[in-house]
């Protein structure tokens, strides 16, 4: 049995794909210099959050329990209004799923959209910001 594979190449592949968006991209936090809600020139941004990792995937074998990990990701698209957040979410989905994902050293078995939280209003800031959460699932072997 081998040790669980490192997940950082998968994170890097997804980050690289998001960076093709021409929007500020944050890695588990708001991007450097991200707009604040009262910025008149607010620039829509997205944040990638790696979530749970199941090192023992559904199709792993008895001889190698770590052969088929399942990684889950969240991308939060933040905009100044509903349309901006939703448009960013659409762009994220297109960028991530529009072409096969390549992860260094691993075979991508499946990479799919795995649900979303519809547009929400974050009233912790004034004026409020709008955001959409998209979940993605990456099956490797």
């Amino acid at each position: 049995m081998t040790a669980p594979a490192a997940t950082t190449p998968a994170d890097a592949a997804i980050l690289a794909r998001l960076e093709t968006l021409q929007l500020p991209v944050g890695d588990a936090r708001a991007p450097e210099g991200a707009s604040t809600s009262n910025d008149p020139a607010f620039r829509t941004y997205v944040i990638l959050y790696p979530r749970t990792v199941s090192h023992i995937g559904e199709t792993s074998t008895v001889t190698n329990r770590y052969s088929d990990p399942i990684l889950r990701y969240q991308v939060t698209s933040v905009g100044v209004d509903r349309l901006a957040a939703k448009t960013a979410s659409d762009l994220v989905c297109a960028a991530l799923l529009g072409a096969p994902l390549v992860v260094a050293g691993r075979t991508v078995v499946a990479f799919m959209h795995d649900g979303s939280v519809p547009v929400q209003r974050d009233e912790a800031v004034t004026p409020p910001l709008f955001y959409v959460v998209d979940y993605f699932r990456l099956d490797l072997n």
Partner: protein
Amino acid sequence: MNPVGKAFGLDDLERDLANAARTIDLYVSPEVHHTLDLAKETQIERVAVDSGKTRDSIKVTGLDGAEWTPTTVNGEAGPTWFVGALLEHGTATMAPKPFVEGSLDPHMEDHKARTLRAATNGALRGIVT
């Protein structure tokens, strides 16, 4: 009545299998509830410590909050307090602090074994009685 079926005892088999199917749910239901109780405990361990109200709202129910009955075999474990969703998904200004996602994972191997055993016992009991 199909005379061929009767000749081969298919009516009896059909009756036995129908009995078994009814009994299986009665046997499996407590095992599913037990697994969800374990997931609930995992969520309670993982939820952010400053959210006692969220922690106290974590419950096991049937699907979509339905009451649990002796034949319920599909259910859910999670918070009912709205902050739970904010913690799980994050917001525009707050990173997610997931505690529901993955809470079943540590218990699934055991769950599969227990439910298979319960289903087998239920099927046999349904056929015998």
